[in-house]
């Protein structure tokens, strides 16, 4: 990508002086034989020199960055910004410097004969005379993809009765040229399944198959096609490849990888596809919907297309660098999706193969350069995602609920004002001040015994704290026996201390960076002989409590709530609890403390110390900050007063009750906030755009303005000078690339491969099209047909090419193994999402609910490991959401849905045009053992049994095959299933409990009817086979 010249910009600038001298001397010494005013002719005098000395590296198929066969290239500034040929100024032209240089690192050509003095002189004079390079000379033929397609003639074919539309003409012509004949039509049931999966991503039901097979004529087929194109399932199926391109995901990517709300954009795509929104409009709204006059909410949602880029909010990130990286992604994705062009190379230098320059890249960049920063320093080293978002309209019923709650909140606030009594407040303060003067004292309890349920080891340190070590169970309960000679204890304190041996110093044990613990429940009992007497606790206080993990949770009797301390990691904390009655006799009393820690993931206490309090607990419980204020004699600041008021309210039952109500209402209101979605927003003041030298955002070159690549169709002068103008330029019917690139991607969705096999690249290094005329015909048909995707899709599935049998013959294997000629119908493994959708459909579990927040179906534990702060949790769906289509499954970039990953789904961190299609053992393990598929297998078993209540094993096996494959099963297939069923029946008979275990294990979400367990367990194995068949996961 980078030629020698770009690798040495440094040296160049150092040598400029010396080189200039060389050149000067050179031109003196090399006074040409011809007279100075004789006109140098490019074609006659100059081009041969280039051809002899330069074009091996700087030719059309160059390895050096510069191309001396292209007038356009030669006159463009080089990668390093220097001028290769400056007309009229030989001395300022790098070309002359290089051919005369004596410096080994700089001279050209680097090997072989140097230019003769005469040749140098000719070039010198040619440049001085204006470097006339006739426009039509030596440009070379334009790459086919950069020429606007025209509709080709339909070719003549011999087998006249075969084609049903022009697609078939082109395909058949190529086949006949190779002496091949098309394959016969596919079996009607196989064809029906193929077209169902191709258009909607879901299989036909057995009834739908029966109806079609009974009458498989072309009209019936067309009626099915029309029905499928109008099905809402169509948009769901076709959104998947588009969202791969749009790198749509529900998280930011990078370290924290927090979730973001952007699903409204995903729903917009589905909706637009279902409506068959013309593709030009589809593109315009996504690229620049916000800039359309009177943009609708939907048009703004559409701009989520370019807000899907990853965003780095890790500590220490530089927001501007992040923004520039996001811009690169937007430019590159635009190039890939709408132009089938890899623009990325031009971030740093002129494109090595394709006719795009670095300046042109930054002209495109300028269109996107007017959006705000998306990362902001929040505090210290914490950075937040702050990119623009838009609230989605709230549904009516939520709106009225919200109004109600707002009213309630106002009432509560009024109540609160009425309930506050200044005198009471002042008396409280006086009493506390008094108490602080003779402060009560905490005394540490002596530890007698420590036990834990998690098998940890422990050590009692000198300060009577217990240091826990050894194994790290997810959850644990400590039982600590301690003694004291204190009398009239009014409160107990539990300290969570730090220690160097704890990960990140503690106080929690589970994690080096987030040293949190969660104390779920505290229970204290006083030993009375052999009896244990409960010591009821109340009035929980702590030096600090994590939001929503208040210390009071530790004595609320709910094992799921608790006290925690994030983000105040790495320092000691304490919690205190008042006893309902004073305890401790003054003789040695023994107390048993039970500390439940149920949260999981080892969020447990590392070092604990217990103390008892004699004296006024009120004063002792004061957080140090409050005590400090109260010790002050002089005037308090407003802030200090506010803190005191707050603490007073907390300790006052009347006020704290109202405050709790206020908090609850505020939270409910918060939950009624409208959902948001990420949108593009233009800043009022456009940014200045400069070329970024070598793609470095701090290294700015010359200023550039909006513009489009010169090799493509011109930018209409009337277009707005913003993203909208760019979008309109992209969908200009004169754009040679957009329609070709788009129909080619669709073709690949139907046939498993593109007419141009490099779907992502139509540049000069692209694979040539297998059927160039067909590609152009489709492209023109697409534009002329009003940019209708459904029109194109219908044409393709109606073609006989698509409807051929996909069976291989020995001839196919010899002549057309990869089906490049389409000598048979398409046959290839389905996408990850389609495999799951299909399995859900055949097992009868599929829920067809559309849209809304992303769903979380079953996935194994430990996939969503935290990769930073605010890690979202996986909350497994228990209702129909569990069984909705894959398009709705939440997409977290650091941890995409694992069974999808095993079937080649990308992480969607960057634009993906073509997913690989691999065949691996991990896929086998997924379909056999992933509990999600196990659950589907059980449902399929149930369906087989229920659909045919009194049928024979053989009939049921055939039914299962028909559900999964659509076609009539073969006897061999039935036999294999029947044999398996019998073997499993034998085994289960010998172990009756086993059936229930299998069924119970497989059933995760739904109801549990285990009466049929024996029967279901046999059929479960059969169903598992069915879901694993090659044909089940293949669109054949």
């Amino acid at each position: 990508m980078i030629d020698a010249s770009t690798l040495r910009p440094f040296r160049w600038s150092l040598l400029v002086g010396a080189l200039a001298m060389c050149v000067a001397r050179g031109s003196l010494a090399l006074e040409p034989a011809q007279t100075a005013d004789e006109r140098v002719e490019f074609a006659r005098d100059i081009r041969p020199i280039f051809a002899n000395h330069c074009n091996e590296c700087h030719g059309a198929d160059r390895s050096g960055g510069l191309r001396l066969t292209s007038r356009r290239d030669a006159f463009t500034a080089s990668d390093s910004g220097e001028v290769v040929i400056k007309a009229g100024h030989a001395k300022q032209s790098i070309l002359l410097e290089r051919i005369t240089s004596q410096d080994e690192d700089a001279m050209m050509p680097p090997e072989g004969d140097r230019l003769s003095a005469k040749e140098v002189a000719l070039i010198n004079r040619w440049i001085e005379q204006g470097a006339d390079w006739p426009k039509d000379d030596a440009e070379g033929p334009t790459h086919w993809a950069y020429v606007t397609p025209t509709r080709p003639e339909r070719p003549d074919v011999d087998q006249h009765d075969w084609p049903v539309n022009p697609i078939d003409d082109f395909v058949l012509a190529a086949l006949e040229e190779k002496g091949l004949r098309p394959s016969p039509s596919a079996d009607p049931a196989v064809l029906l399944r193929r077209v169902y999966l191709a258009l909607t991503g879901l299989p036909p039901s057995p009834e739908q198959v029966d109806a079609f097979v009974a009458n498989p004529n072309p009209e019936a087929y067309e009626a099915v096609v029309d029905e499928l194109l109008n099905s809402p399932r169509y948009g769901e199926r076709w959104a998947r490849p588009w969202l791969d391109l749009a790198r749509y995901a529900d998280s930011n990517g990078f370290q924290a990888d927090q979730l973001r709300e952007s699903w409204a954009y995903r729903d917009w795509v589905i909706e637009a596809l279902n409506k068959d929104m013309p593709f030009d409009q589809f593109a315009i709204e996504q690229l620049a919907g916000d800039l359309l006059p009177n943009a609708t909410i939907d048009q703004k949602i559409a701009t989520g297309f370019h807000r899907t880029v990853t965003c780095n909010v890790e500590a220490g990130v530089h927001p501007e660098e992040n923004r520039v990286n996001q811009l690169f992604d937007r430019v590159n994705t635009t190039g890939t999706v709408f132009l089938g062009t890899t623009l990325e190379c031009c971030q740093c230098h002129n494109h090595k193969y394709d006719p795009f320059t670095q300046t042109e890249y930054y002209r495109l960049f300028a269109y996107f350069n007017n959006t705000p920063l998306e990362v902001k320093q929040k505090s210290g080293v914490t950075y937040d995602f702050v990119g623009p978002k838009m609230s989605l309209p709230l549904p009516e019923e939520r709106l009225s609920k919200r109004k109600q709650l707002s009213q309630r909140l106002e009432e509560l606030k009024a109540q609160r004002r009425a309930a506050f009594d200044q005198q009471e407040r002042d008396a409280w303060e006086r009493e506390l001040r008094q108490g602080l003067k003779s402060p009560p004292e905490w005394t540490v309890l002596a530890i007698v015994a420590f036990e834990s349920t998690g098998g940890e080891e422990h050590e009692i340190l000198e300060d009577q704290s217990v240091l826990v070590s050894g194994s790290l169970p997810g959850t644990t309960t400590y039982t600590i026996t301690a003694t004291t000679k204190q009398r009239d204890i009014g409160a107990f304190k539990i300290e969570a201390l730090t220690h160097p041996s704890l990960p990140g110093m503690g106080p929690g044990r589970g994690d080096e960076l987030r040293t949190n613990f969660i104390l779920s429940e505290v229970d204290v009992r006083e030993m009375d002989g052999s009896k244990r007497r409960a010591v009821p606790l109340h009035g929980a206080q702590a030096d600090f409590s994590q939001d929503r993990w208040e210390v009071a949770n530790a004595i609320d009797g709910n094992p799921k709530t608790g006290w925690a301390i994030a983000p105040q990691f790495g320092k000691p904390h304490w919690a205190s609890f008042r006893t309902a009655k004073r305890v401790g006799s003054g003789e040695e009393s023994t107390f048993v403390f039970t500390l439940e820690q149920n949260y999981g993931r080892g969020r447990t206490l590392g070092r604990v110390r217990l103390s008892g309090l004699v004296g006024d607990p009120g004063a002792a419980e004061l957080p140090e900050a409050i005590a400090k204020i109260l010790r002050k004699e002089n005037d308090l600041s407003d802030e200090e007063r506010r803190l005191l008021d707050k603490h007073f309210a907390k300790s006052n039952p009347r006020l704290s009750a109202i405050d709790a109500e206020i908090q609850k209402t505020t939270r409910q209101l918060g939950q009624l906030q409208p959902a948001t979605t990420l949108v593009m927003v233009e800043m009022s003041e456009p940014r200045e755009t400069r070329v970024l030298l070598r793609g470095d955002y701090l290294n700015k070159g010359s200023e550039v303005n909006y513009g489009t690549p010169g090799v493509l169709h011109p930018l209409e002068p009337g277009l707005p000078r913003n993203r909208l103008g760019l979008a309109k330029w992209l969908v200009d019917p004169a754009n040679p690339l957009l329609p070709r690139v788009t129909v080619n991607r669709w073709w690949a969705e139907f046939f498993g491969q593109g007419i141009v096999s490099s779907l992502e690249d139509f540049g000069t290094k692209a694979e040539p099209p297998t059927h160039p005329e067909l590609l152009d015909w489709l492209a023109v048909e697409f534009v002329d047909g009003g940019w209708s995707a459904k029109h194109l899709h219908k044409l393709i599935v109606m073609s006989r090419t698509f409807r051929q049998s996909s069976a291989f013959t020995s001839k196919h294997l010899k002549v057309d193994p990869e089906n490049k000629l389409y000598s048979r119908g398409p046959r290839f493994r389905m996408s990850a999402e389609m495999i799951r959708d299909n399995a859900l459909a055949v097992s009868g579990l599929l829920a067809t609910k559309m849209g809304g927040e992303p769903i979380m179906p079953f996935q194994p534990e430990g996939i969503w490991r935290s990769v930073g702060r605010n890690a979202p949790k996986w909350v497994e769906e228990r209702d129909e959401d569990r069984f909705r289509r894959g398009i709705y499954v939440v997409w977290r970039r650091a941890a995409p849905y694992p069974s999808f990953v095993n079937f080649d789904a990308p992480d969607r961190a960057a634009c993906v045009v073509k997913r690989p299609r691999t065949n691996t053992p991990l896929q086998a393990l997924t379909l056999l053992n992933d509990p999600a598929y196990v659950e589907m297998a059980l449902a399929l078993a149930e369906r087989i049994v229920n659909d045919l209540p009194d049928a024979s094993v053989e009939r049921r096996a055939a039914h299962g095959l028909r559900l999964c494959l659509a076609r009539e099963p073969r006897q061999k297939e039935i036999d294999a299933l029947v044999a398996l069923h019998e073997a499993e029946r034998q085994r289960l008979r010998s172990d009756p409990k086993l059936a229930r275990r299998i069924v119970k294990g497989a059933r995760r979400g739904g109801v549990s009817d285990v009466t049929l367990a024996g029967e279901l367990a046999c059929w479960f194995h059969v169903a598992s086979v069915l879901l694993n068949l090659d044909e089940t996961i293949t669109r054949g």
Partner: protein
Amino acid sequence: MTDLTNALQALTRRELFQTVGTGIGAAALTSLLQRDAAAESLDSAKADPARRTHFAPKAKSVIYIHLVGAPSHLDLFDHKPELQKRDGELCPDEMFKGKRLAFIRNQPTLLGTPKEKKFTFRRVGESGHAISNLMPNLQEVADEITFINTLHTDQFNHGPAQMYLLSGFERFGRPSIGSWTTYGLGSENENLPGFVVLITGQVLGAGSSAWGSGFLPTVYQGVEFRSQGDPVLFLSNPKGIDTASRRRVLDAINTINQDGLANVGDPEIATRIKQYEMAFRMQSSVPELMDIKSEPLEVHERYGTKPGKTSFANNCLLARRLVERGVRFVQLFDQGWDMHGSVFSRLPVKCGQVDQPIAALIGDLKERGLLDDTLVVWSAEFGRTPMAQGRNGTGKVTKAGRDHHKEAYTVWMAGGGVRRGFSHGATDELGYAVAENPVHVHDLNATILHLLGMDHKRLTFRYQGRDYRLTDVHGDVVHEIIA
């Protein structure tokens, strides 16, 4: 159908030979995860690794230990007495003015390694390279190690720097070094993936991209072997399903798929049948591999391993078991080295976790004769500043830490054809910048590929019309460190 079957076999064999003929990268087809129906015919090719490499390899496999967050190399491997002497002084202007740092915003003070005994350095081995007493076990195997003191990178945020080091590019989308390696060389074990990832602590910021295959076929991505739950996702049978029952299910699947193959003739079906067989074998080979209980007591004592636990030590032992079984690339990630604060209280704890098992791994590999063709790498996304972050370093007890540092840091390698007991390059007296023999991350990657017998300029993959490489358009092999 015999006609079809014959043609099918001829085709798959021909395809294989064609691709193998093209040399590097063609091992794709022969690698474990993508073996073809007729792959047996390749056994002869498999025995001849030179067919897949550009030149004779020094190393057959790699154990790549990535210390996530970046260890404080200045307190471990790059001893700077001058920095200790000037501890607490404001750092020279040229170390701060006009520089971009991740966290430090005001001119910081210099932070020397404490002079307490546990932090002192000892010159060890033939190279006389100084290793901190925080790594006493590593000191003992110093003679096996080549230190590179002058690695430098272009990125100073974790996620981008991890991707830059591991994929040669600071943003998402490129293949990781492990997937490049398996793409080039394939695997030597039929029953295990060629690229295995083992993790302790949080997953690194780059997420699974750190072992992703980018635009390479997904068969080359790293497979994470987990220490809790199924070692490989979905490896174990559902409840109540035993091996015999699973075998019957597989037989039924294969019978029907065979019938499909006979009727439809798609070679892909033959591959699918193979994959199901391999999945079945993995169900026993992976648990066998992960079960370290079978190792003798002295091995556990040596590594400090405890069966059933998640620990870095266990992962080191697993790494040995993996390369022993022919796994090509084993990558260990260990989280917890990002010490912006309290570096001197936290570093000893982390070192305590890794020192013994790493030294044990090197010694163990050597005794088993595996070290010669196994390259062990200690690496991180960047180094740490000689300047203090947080409170300055003057106080006796300090909570100071070190910020991210991209100008120079230390990594080391052992075995696999690198020089024994060698130290390459030097930083300036304060450990800020390279003084001599800089090694860029692209150079490091080029060198690792070189040791594996691959020319980083020729290990390419065509994507979007461009031949991509791990080293982009850069990288020079550091020949000085090769034995």
